[in-house]
C-alpha cells in the first residue's frame, strides 16, 4: 500500500515536471507572452488589456500572442508583485495604472519599489478632473475656491479609493491653498459618483472617462482639470491647474512595464508591437468607447513619469500625515 503511494507520486513528478529544455535564443519572442493584469476581469484595465491582446499578435514578430492573466487583489499589489518576481526574459509583462507602482510602495504595502520596474511604453492617459453637481452654486473654479475659503470644513468630496492618484490630485490643491475640506473615501468610483448625485458629498475627483456620461446627461460640471491639458470636447473651456497658476498635473495612465533586468532589445520588440497595436482601429474603438484617451509615450518618458509621480505622491501623503517617512 505505502509503496504504491510513493510510486505514484514519483511517476507523476517525473512526467509532470519534465520541463522541456529552455530553447530561448535570439528569436524573441518564440512563445506566447503573458501580460499580468492586477485587477479583476471586466474592469477598465482588463478591458484595455483584452482589446490589445486580441490584435497584438498581428504586430508581434512570429505572430506570437500576448495572453492576459488576471491576478487581482490588494489594490493591484498582488499581481504587480508577480510581474516583479517574474524572470526578466520579456515573457512576463504587466499593464499597469499608477496605483500599484507609484502609490502602494509608499504605504509599505508592496515588496517592490517603482525603480525595480522597466517602463516599456505608455499607451493611454486620462487627466484627473474635479467635478461637482450641475446645480452646485459654483460655476468656476475661482468661485469655488473663494466659497471654500470662506466656509472652512463645509466642502466634502469623494474619490473611488483612499490614497489613489484621484484623491491625491485634489489633496495637493487643498494643501497648497491650505483649505479645510472633508474627504469621504469610497470603495469604487461608481459609489463615489452616486454619493455626488445624491447630494451626500459636494464634489468628486475622478479620472476623466468616469464623468463622460454624467456630463452628457447634464448631471455634473467640471470645475477644473487636475491633470495635463488635453484636446477633448468636454474639457474645452475647463481650466487646468497649470493654467490656473499651480505647478501640478496628475494623470491616470495605462502603460506596460516589466521586471527591471529585461534586455534592451526585447524592450524594443515589445515597444514596437504595442505602438503598432495602439493605432489599430479595433483597439482605438474600444478605447474610445470606454473614454480612455490614447496617449503614447516612449519608454524613457514613461519611466520618468512613474518616478516623478512617485515623488509627488510621497510629498502629498507625508503632508497629509498618511505616511511617515
Amino acid at each position, binding site marked *: 500500500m505505502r509503496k504504491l503511494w510513493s510510486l505514484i507520486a514519483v511517476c507523476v513528478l517525473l512526467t509532470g515536471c519534465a520541463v522541456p529544455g529552455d530553447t530561448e535564443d535570439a528569436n524573441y519572442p518564440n512563445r506566447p507572452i503573458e501580460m499580468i493584469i492586477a485587477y479583476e476581469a471586466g474592469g477598465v484595465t482588463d478591458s484595455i488589456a483584452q482589446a490589445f491582446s486580441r490584435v497584438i499578435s498581428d504586430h508581434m514578430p512570429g505572430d506570437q500572442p500576448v495572453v492576459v492573466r488576471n491576478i487581482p*487583489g490588494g489594490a493591484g499589489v498582488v499581481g504587480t508583485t508577480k510581474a516583479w518576481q517574474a524572470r526578466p526574459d520579456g515573457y512576463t509583462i504587466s499593464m499597469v495604472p499608477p496605483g500599484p507602482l507609484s502609490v502602494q510602495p509608499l504605504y509599505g504595502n508592496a515588496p517592490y519599489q517603482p525603480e525595480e520596474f522597466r517602463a516599456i511604453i505608455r499607451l493611454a492617459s486620462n487627466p484627473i478632473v474635479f467635478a461637482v453637481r450641475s446645480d452646485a452654486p459654483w460655476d468656476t473654479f475661482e468661485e469655488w475656491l473663494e466659497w471654500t475659503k470662506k466656509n472652512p470644513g463645509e466642502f466634502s468630496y469623494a474619490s473611488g479609493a483612499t490614497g489613489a492618484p484621484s484623491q491625491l490630485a485634489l489633496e495637493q490643491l487643498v494643501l497648497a491653498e491650505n483649505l479645510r475640506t472633508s474627504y469621504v473615501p469610497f470603495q469604487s468610483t461608481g459609489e463615489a459618483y452616486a454619493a455626488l448625485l445624491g447630494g451626500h458629498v459636494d464634489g468628486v475627483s475622478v479620472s476623466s472617462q468616469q464623468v463622460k456620461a454624467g456630463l452628457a446627461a447634464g448631471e455634473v460640471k467640471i470645475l477644473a482639470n487636475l491633470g495635463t491639458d488635453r484636446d477633448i470636447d468636454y474639457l474645452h473651456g475647463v481650466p487646468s491647474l497649470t493654467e490656473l497658476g499651480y505647478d501640478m498635473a496628475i494623470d491616470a495612465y495605462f502603460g506596460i512595464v516589466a521586471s527591471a533586468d529585461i534586455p534592451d532589445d526585447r524592450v524594443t520588440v515589445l515597444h514596437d508591437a504595442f505602438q503598432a497595436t495602439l493605432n489599430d482601429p479595433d483597439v482605438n474603438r474600444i478605447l*474610445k468607447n470606454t473614454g480612455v484617451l490614447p496617449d503614447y509615450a516612449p519608454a524613457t518618458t514613461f519611466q520618468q513619469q512613474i518616478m516623478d509621480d512617485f515623488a509627488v505622491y510621497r510629498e502629498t501623503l507625508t503632508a497629509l500625515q498618511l505616511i511617515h517617512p
Partner: protein
Amino acid sequence: MENLILFLQGMQTAFAPMNLLFVLVGVTIGMLIGVLPGIGPVAGAALLIPVTYGLDPTAAIILLAGIYYGSMYGGTITSVLLNIPGDSASVITTMDGHPLAKQGRAGVALGVAALGSFVGSTLALLALVFIAPALAGVALDFGPPEYFAAMLTGMLLIGALIGKSLVKGLISTFLGMALAMVGMEPTMGVARFNFGFSELLGGINFVLIAVGIFGLSQILLNLDTKAIVTVNERITGMRPRRAELRGTTTATLRGSIIGVVLGVIPAISAAVASLVSYATEKRLAKDPTRFGRGAVEGVAGPESANNAAAGASMIPLLTLGIPGSPTTAILLGAFMIHGLTPGPTLFTDEPEFVWAVIASLLAGNVILLIFNIKLINLWAKLIQLPYPLLYPAILAIAVIGAYSINYSMSDVVITLVFAAVGYVMRQLDFPVAPIALSFVLGGNIEWTLVQTLAMSNDGLLIFLGRPIALGILIACVAIAVIAMAVRLYMRFVRGKGSDANVSTPVG
C-alpha cells in the same frame, strides 16, 4: 403606457431567432456557472466579456445579462443539494433548503426556489418597465448614513439565523465581522491582519469562506457519519404539501416585494434582501421553530427576494448608470466597451437597445423557469448517486472554484484553512450561516460609519438631520426591543428549566 408599447417593440427584437439564441446560450452558461461553486455571477460574466467583443451590442448585453440571471438560478441548486452556497445571495437558502433535501424533499425545495425566482425576477422586471425613474430617484437618497443604518439592521436580523445557543451564535456573527476586517482599511489604507501576506491585502474573498466553511467542512464532516443520508431514495415530487401552499405563496410574494424595494438601492446586495425576507418569514410564522429544519417558506421567500433584488439592481444601472452590485458593475463595463453609456440618456438615445434588453430578461426568465423545472429530476438523480462516488468530484470542483477567482493557489490554501475552521466549529455546535452574512455586512458597516463621520461636522449627530437614516435606526431599535421582549416572554411561559435544554448539544 408608452413604456409598454416600447416594451412590446423590444419583444420583437428580443424574440428574433438570433437574439433568442443568445438568451438561451447566456442563461445556459449562467446556470452552469451558478451550479459550480466558486465561479459566481461576477466571475462568470467577467470571463465572457472578451467573447462578446465581436458581437453587436444588443446581442452582447443580452448574452451577459443572461449569464447574470442564469447564475442566480443556478446558485440555489448547490445550496439545496450540497449545502454549498455558490454566492452570498444563496447562503440563506442553505438554512432550510438543505434540510429539505435531507428529508428527501429536494424536489420541493428546488421547485419552490425556481418558481419563486421567476416570480421575483418578473416583478422586478415590471418595476423596471413601469416605475424605474421614480425608484431610481429614491435610490440616490441613500447615502452613507442610510447604508450604515440599513447594515446595522441587517446585523440584527442575523439573529434569525442563530441556532440553539445565543452565545455561540453571537461568536459566529462577530467572527464574520472580524474576518471582514482583514486587508486594507478605509481611513488610512493600513493593512490589517494580513500577517505579511500580500495576498490578504485586498481582504478575503467571500467565495473562499463559503466554499471552505460551508462546503468542504461539510464534506469532511460527512466522512465520519456512518450513514449519510443525502437524500431519501424516494423523491416526493416538487409540489409542496397542501398545508404549505398558502405559506409558500405569501412568502414568495412578500420576498419578491422585499427584493425589488431593497434591490433598487445600490450597495444593498441580494444577500441582504434574502436575509430580510428570511427574518420576516420566521417572525411571521406561527411556529418559528420549523425554520432551520426544512421550512418551505424559508426557501421560497429568500429565493424570490434575491432574484427580485438582482433584477431590480438593473434599475439604477440602466437609469442612472450606477451599478448596485459587483455583477452589475461588470455589466456597466460591458456597456461601455460596446459604446453604450448607461444613464438617463440611454433610454432616449438608444430606446431600441434598452427595450430589447429588458424584453430579453423576460424571455430569459421564462426559459430558466422551464429549464429548472425540467432539470429538477436530473439534479435529484445526480445526488442519488452513491456518496463515496460523488464527494471526491465535488471536492475537486470546490478546489477549482476557489482557484478560479484569482487564479491563485494561495486562495485554495485559505479555503482549506476555512474548511478546518468550519469543521471544528460545526463539531463544537457553532452555527455557520451567521459568519457568511455578517462577513458581507461587517465590512460595509465600518466603511459606511467612516464615511458618515467624514461627511459630518458634528459626529454622530448627523443622523438627527437625516430622516431616512433615523427612521431605519428607530425601526432597528424597535425590532431589537420587541425581539428581546418576545424572548423574555417565551422564557417566562416555558418556565425556567428550558434554557438548560436549549443549549444541550445534539451531535
